[in-house]
């Protein structure tokens, strides 16, 4: 818990951690978070239209969607949150809320199940949220050719593709650093030459 004199405006930022089922999202969040990852739940109606706000009424069929997240105190007045996306991509209503205002996203990939991340990539491209690909190196699968993954995913050449070990704090740190560097570079480029 950070204690803070009441000077300066406190603010927060977030990064989204996405990827297929069991790809290592929670592990990645846990490896850098200063708190044990927490889980928060949102409710939606069975119709799929009801977001967790005004349509939730007793009696309707409801379903919950869980997201886990961690926290990193960046400095005295700035907290970074890492939000893991819900495993099932059908919960799009939650994804909207997750990406709103986010710095960017890490799309975790298991090379044995590449297709699992397609939905996330499509979503971020559609929302124009900057993302990078992090290949989670499960045991015995250390050296992947980033170019092969890039080709298989058909992503643009400027999207960074990095390898990581989600269990390792340094490795996770480097993934996050790469993402923020990428976002900053894009931002500077666009600020100089607006599209």
């Amino acid at each position: 818990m950070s204690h803070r004199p009441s000077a300066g405006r406190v603010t927060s930022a977030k990064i989204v951690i996405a990827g297929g089922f069991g790809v290592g999202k929670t592990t990645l969040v846990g490896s850098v978070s200063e708190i044990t990852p927490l889980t928060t739940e949102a409710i939606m109606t069975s119709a799929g239209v009801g977001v967790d706000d005004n349509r939730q009424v007793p009696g309707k069929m409801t379903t919950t969607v869980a997201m886990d997240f961690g926290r990193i105190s960046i400095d005295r007045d700035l907290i970074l949150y890492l939000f893991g996306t819900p495993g099932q991509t059908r919960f799009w209503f939650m994804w909207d809320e997750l990406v709103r205002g986010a710095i960017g996203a890490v799309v975790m990939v298991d090379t044995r199940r590449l297709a699992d991340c397609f939905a996330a990539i499509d979503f971020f491209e559609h929302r124009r949220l900057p993302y990078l690909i992090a290949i989670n190196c499960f045991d015995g699968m250390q050296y992947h050719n980033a170019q092969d993954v890039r080709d298989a995913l058909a992503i643009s050449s400027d999207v960074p593709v990095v390898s990581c070990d989600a269990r390792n704090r340094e490795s996770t740190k480097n993934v996050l650093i790469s993402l923020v560097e990428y976002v900053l570079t894009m931002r500077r480029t666009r600020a100089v030459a607006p599209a």
Partner: protein
Amino acid sequence: MPERDEPTGALVRPYAVTRGRTRPKLEIALEALVETTVRGRSGMMRGGQGGSEHQYIAEMCDGGRVQSLAEIAARMQLPLGVARVIVADMASDGLVAVYEPTSLDDETDAVGTELLERVLSGLRRL
């Protein structure tokens, strides 16, 4: 970690806390930070109004320990929408201050760029 895969009647209960209201008085981002105000602190010591949820949140976010809406919901094991209604009520009663995240939408905005640079140097220091 709580496991709830099937919708259950129990899910309806938390909305009793908000007297059935599902529309918050204020839209609050998941990662918005909440801090107990002086007024919230004195309300807490007097036993407060608004019920035990208010008390709990006021304590959790007191003494410079800011917490995000997501943390409040998770620690209280309340659905996000319910926590949002409660926190918005507390904010409108002046019991907590809500600090919204810095917007990154405008790519030419120096404030957003400065925030990203702070995040980057913070991550490098970790």
